[in-house]
């Protein structure tokens, strides 16, 4: 059974149908890429699943449970996490604090009305923060203000934030956008590590075809809000409809 399953998901903004009846299943432990030209509805689709937007109709099931229309903080508690297109961090807080917040998010039940207990007394949170920062190799920079990190590090910090809530499914919205070739390579390595070591299921929106063909197990192609292909990379490469819609007929 799929970890995430959407059924006839539709999102309309006034007269515009941004997501048009998308039914897709994402298997546990796989990396699934979503591609499509600008305005194809990739980000809207992710937002409908993660709770930032309410879908107009259709359902979203996660791990067998209906999560349609749940607000973001609840979908995160269910095990869905997200890294944003632009590094979404807490700019004037330290790198460590940035990840700490997420680690507390995962422990949200443990301090309901405990206003006076010190942060440093939550050992599990401290441990998790350190582990996440080490996994993205930012532990050495933990006392640096997040806004003064180089761009690639900001993106990696954001991935650490997303991971600290210990998700089963991670959405990554263009994780390599704006990165140098070096940073892109590091990020691709990181994605592969995450899947192998943590068994994460990853949904990737990406424009860089090289990245996609290296990491994706399956590719979903959206065009005008609808799925026009959903198959393994080799098949997508040869799909004429995809080439017509997305690549303007060019060979990949």
């Amino acid at each position, binding site marked *: 059974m799929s970890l995430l399953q959407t059924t006839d998901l539709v999102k309309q903004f006034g007269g515009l149908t941004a997501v048009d009846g998308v039914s897709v299943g994402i298997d546990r432990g796989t990396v699934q890429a979503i591609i499509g030209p600008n305005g194809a509805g990739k980000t809207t689709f992710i937002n409908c699943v993660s709770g930032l937007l309410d879908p107009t109709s259709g359902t979203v099931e996660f791990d067998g449970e209906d999560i349609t229309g749940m607000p973001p903080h609840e979908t995160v508690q269910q095990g869905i996490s997200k890294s944003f297109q632009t590094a979404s961090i807490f700019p004037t807080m330290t790198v460590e604090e940035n990840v700490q917040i997420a680690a507390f998010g995962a422990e949200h039940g443990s301090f309901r009305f405990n206003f006076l207990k010190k*942060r440093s007394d939550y050992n599990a949170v401290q441990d998790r923060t350190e582990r996440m920062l080490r996994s993205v190799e930012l532990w050495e920079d933990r006392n640096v203000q997040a806004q003064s990190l180089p761009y690639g590090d900001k993106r990696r910090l954001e991935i650490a934030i997303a991971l600290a809530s210990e998700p089963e499914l991670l959405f990554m919205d263009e994780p390599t956008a704006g990165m140098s070739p070096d940073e892109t390579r590091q990020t691709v390595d990181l994605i592969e590590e995450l899947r192998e070591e943590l068994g994460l299921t990853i949904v990737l929106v990406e424009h860089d075809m090289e990245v996609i063909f290296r990491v994706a197990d399956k590719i979903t192609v959206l065009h005008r809000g609808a799925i026009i292909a959903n198959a393994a990379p080799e098949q997508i490469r040869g799909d004429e409809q995809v080439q017509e819609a997305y690549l303007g007929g060019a060979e990949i």
Partner: protein
Amino acid sequence: MSTETEGEGGSVGATGLTDSDAVLMIASAVALFSLPWVLVDGFGIVAEMLDFSIGGYVGLPSLILIYGIVVIGYNLLLGYTGLLSFGHAAFFGTGAYVAGVVSQSVGSPIVMVLAGIAVATLIAWPIGWVSIRRTGVYFAVITLTFGQMLYFWALGPGSWLTNGDNGFSEVGTGPILGTFELDSAVFPNIGFLQSYTYEYVFIAILALLALWIANRILKSPYGLIFEALGQNQQRVSFVGLNVQRYKLMAFIISAVFAGAGGALFIMHENYVHPNTAYYWIQSGDFVIMTILGGAGSLVGPVFGAFIFEYVANVLSGLSLPVIGAIGSLWRIVLGAVFVVIVWTFPKGVYPGVRDFLVRRGARDALDRLSDRVRNRGGESE
């Protein structure tokens, strides 16, 4: 951008120094203990030398700390969570009226404060619940509206309780713990400690408690989340935290402090009028004090309350050569002070002065270091 980073970098040393809770509490206790002497006697001596009445009077230190308590809490909302409420007089005034009404049957100051806090918290819940659903200007306007609703309620339909426009004056504050009269001096036989009344001691202890609580909140997970909310709400919800819940908590916590301040206010003044309790200008004053002193620093707003009340109560009594008595023109003076301070210390008086000192300290250290390096260079040559 670069100056911002520089300032933050500079403050790292300062936080390292004041990181220990004990140091903070002891320093604050010393400051609160010396405040009446400095303000009343110390300034008084200077005033006599200059022949200029700039000394404080006996009740002023209490008044400063009352507003100090309010803005310590208000700052958790404005300075950390980034929510600009223009309606905190609602909780201040409620604390005052409730304490006043309670004092008619139970005169214990402790009971009065607890009652004021309880009812202020109770009304903060629904007001906060509605207000935090909007952000920015809309949040400010909604809170302003709630404050004004209570103001007109106190003037009109609520006058059976508040005595409307005549003001509430039947305050029956008793002695603390049944023994210590608020107005009497703690050391009646020591001349230079005449300004230390039991009222001041009581309020100073509560102010210390307020600082301690605010400090612990800031060091708890809540503090981290409040600060995070001030920077990036969307990310907070995407780490699994319910944004509305934590904003509501920040709102209610700040109302607790405002309620306590209101209860102390009526104890101190023995009188409260809708204008000093609920009027929107009162809410605005909390904003000014907080920004003046330093929003986003724990003790900063107390300095703001000091400057504000000093201008309002002491400088307003001055008489200047050309314009004559300042009197009710004190808000113009305050405005000038505000402009100068925001200009020179955009982050507020306390963070501004602290960063300045730290930076100067760092520069001195660098100078010494480079001297040493230069000397060593000289030796080797």
